[in-house]
């Protein structure tokens, strides 16, 4: 929300890339071209973001291979259920436990690694859900306009205006009672926050694409709305999504961390979570056990920072205004209300 909301005017991409449908490879090359041609600082930041995100993706996927212990393991060995070599509680970082151990005698490093897995699961689901709901709604609303559009815009604006965390907290509360505190609950609670953003972005691009010559042409040739939306509008609009998605993913990680910090995220007995670990560490810190909170917190910063760099980097290279060699043109300052009405 923060970044997408603060960037100047409807996010990007579409203007550069609305050249009409082309071959798949051609389109891919055109999409990637700015990434490859980015240079200097921009390139460096972009690649740093990609590297960080990849690091966490690898950690998440291969957690069982990389992690020295299980996320809730408290003994060196379990021999027929008997615990041998129980870890110390709140042990300092050492050779056996690089990041120390928690109050439940679990390995902090293992929890940080598995925490990446939980974060990825939730965020991928949340982004998937919100695109699946937000994009079709935006397409339909923007293309057909009328009463439906007005009602949807009103609902989405109401949701968008609402403090996002409160929205997520309340929904998580409700769902926890209904379907329990799993990954799904957290993902749905977070989804509700981001649907309005995809809706707005997509709807705005649809409105601008709708009047393009080639869409007009297709319409006069008698193409059905479904075909037009699917074949012409969608492919153009979809190109704005990666930037928003990576920025939203960053935000979603923060939202998940906040939810689990407040105790309404994923059930702590079901998965390792960074936010939950930081909240448990608040009381550890006063006793001098700094390691239980520091590492999960740093993990959040690195992953969110990586996703932000990636998103901003993509935004930079796709946004002609910010591109170093870009065309010189004046862009109006951010507007809040007028870009919601059909133009």
């Amino acid at each position, binding site marked *: 929300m923060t970044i997408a909301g603060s960037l100047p005017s409807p996010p990007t991409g579409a203007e550069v890339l609305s050249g009409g449908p082309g071959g798949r490879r051609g389109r891919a090359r055109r999409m990637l071209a700015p990434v490859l041609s980015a240079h200097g600082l921009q390139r460096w930041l972009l690649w740093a973001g990609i590297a960080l995100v990849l690091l966490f993706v690898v950690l998440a996927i291969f957690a069982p291979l990389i992690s020295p212990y299980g996320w*809730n393991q*408290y003994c060196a060995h379990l021999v*027929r*259920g*008997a*615990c041998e070599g129980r870890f110390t*509680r*709140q042990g300092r970082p050492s050779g056996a436990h690089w990041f120390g151990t928690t*109050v*439940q*005698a679990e390995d902090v490093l293992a929890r940080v690694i598995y925490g990446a897995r939980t974060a990825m699961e939730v965020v991928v689901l949340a982004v998937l859900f919100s695109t699946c709901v937000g994009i079709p709604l935006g397409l339909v609303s923007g293309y057909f306009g009328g009463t439906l559009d007005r009602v949807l815009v009103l609902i989405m604006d109401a949701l968008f205006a609402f403090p996002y965390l409160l929205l997520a907290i309340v929904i998580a509360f409700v769902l*926890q*009672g209904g379907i*329990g*505190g799993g990954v799904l609950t957290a993902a749905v609670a977070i989804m509700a926050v981001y649907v309005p953003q995809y809706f707005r972005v997509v709807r705005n691009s649809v409105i601008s694409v709708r009047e393009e010559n080639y869409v007009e042409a297709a319409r006069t040739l008698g193409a059905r709305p479904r075909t037009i939306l699917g074949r012409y509008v969608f492919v153009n609009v979809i190109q704005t999504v990666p930037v928003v998605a990576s920025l939203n993913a960053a935000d979603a990680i923060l939202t998940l961390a906040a939810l689990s910090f407040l*105790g*309404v995220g994923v*059930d*702590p*007995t079901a998965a390792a979570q960074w936010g939950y670990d930081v909240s*448990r560490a*608040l*009381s*550890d810190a*006063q*006793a*001098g*056990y700094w390691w239980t909170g520091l590492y999960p917190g740093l993990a959040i910063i690195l992953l969110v920072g990586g996703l932000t760099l990636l998103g901003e980097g993509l935004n930079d290279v796709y946004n002609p205004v910010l591109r170093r060699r870009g065309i010189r043109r004046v862009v109006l300052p951010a507007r809040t209300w007028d870009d919601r009405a059909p133009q």
Partner: protein
Amino acid sequence: MRQRGRMIRLIALGTGLAVVIAACGSGKKAPSTSASAKSGATASVVMGTTDRVVALDPAGSYDLGSWTPIYNIYQLLLKIPPGGNTPVPDAATCAWQNPSNPVVYMCTMKAGQKFSNGDPVTAQDAAYSFQRIVTIKASNGPSSLLSSMKSVTASGNTVTFTLTAPNAVWPYVLTTGAGALVDQKVFPADKLLPDSQVIGSGPYKLAKYVPNQLAEFLPNPNYGGDDKLSNKEFIIRYEQNADTLVSDVSSGAINVAYRDMSPTQIKSLQGKSGVQIVYGHGTEIRYLNFNYNVMPGSNTAQKSAIRQAIAYLINRQDIATNVYNNTVKPLYSMIPQGLAGHTDSFKQMYGASPNPAKAKAALQAAGVQTPLAITLWYNTNHYGEASADEYTEIQRQLGASGLFKVTLQSAEWSTYNVAITKDEYGIGQLGWFPDYPNADDYTAPFYIDCSAATPNFPNNHYCNPAMEKLIAQEEATTDQAKRNAIFAQIQTIAAQDPVYIPVWQGGQVAAVGSNVTGVPSTFDPSYTFRFWLIGKK
């Protein structure tokens, strides 16, 4: 030119905003009282707590957070003396009309007791106080504590309670917050009085109250009771989380940190200069609750065997040590140590340390396939954050025997306490905080469940007519030795076929500044925090 115009408008907007903000601030101006309240620093005590006040009107509260100030603002008919566990006179002296049939209880008011506004405390006030609790029936109020009261009348300086059935523990009910005496000229008969307006005849009066932040108590100049005050100002600071208690007590910003610090937080304060940890007797308990309808096991015998096997396997000492740093004590009966009638019945039945062989034998005898998959439920926020650690420990203990495969599930309190009474959790964590320090409060609410109209509060479908008969006997007996004998029988039955497995008994813990005195004397099973005992060296 247009640029400049825009800029001017921008500035105008900003200035306008500043004016509006400033205007908001300049409300009514109070006379400057720069002489601050800091002068009496030596004798003023600040206590921090995470408890919250539900209501300061006794008719509206049924929780420790509210009862703590209530015990200090109001007088009761009877009170529990520091360190004791039997009622003694406060504003009245009381006796059964006929001790062998405890149905009519009569209290005679002491002379010379006054409310802080100067009104005398009369028997009429006392009867009025009890009557209005029942009339108002506030949703968070203590009316259910008075459910055995048929009527209350006042004549002259005597209050007479007539009960619906013999109830030897009635004097204990009078020592709870529900027994606080209010002024009938001040408190409305049919609704609650706002917190900031409450007055009483206790040692203190409420001087300033900012809900959930601060309550300031000053001595009640009209107090006619016998308690001597060791301070001349007592302030409660309400904190949102216990971390703050820890940092504030270390920095000296508060003198007493009371409820509710986690084991880690208490440990972090041990050995800190300027801070001492005070331990006291407590009667809060935690236990496992089994729902007869939905717990695992295909018949009564199997279910019984499963409960016994768990009782054999739980290592209470490990829980106390590994999870709670020994701030709690292993509990071997639903009646905690320190109350008359307690016996270690679970220790006698199942041994002090785990016995996997006997657990296995019990399961095999009933034909239970092992390892048996079971789900343990616990609550994430109501019983302290260490609950997660405690249940992880229990999971490990049961799993280590190879007899059980334990899955942990948790829910936050609002969901949890509804679900547990609706047959959703087969085995789950519960806790009990006493209303008054008497063994009856640890048995009657738990083991009376045979009538469908009044199930026990976890609604776990336990029914044992022998148990109900014993409890009725105990309630009709005023002789303590006889009651103890009955409680011994109750506890034996409770251990033989456990519907609850007691786990631990909490102690009271406070971290206090090294110059603070009196906290150990107020720690007793009644959980009455007596402000007047707290002073400074």
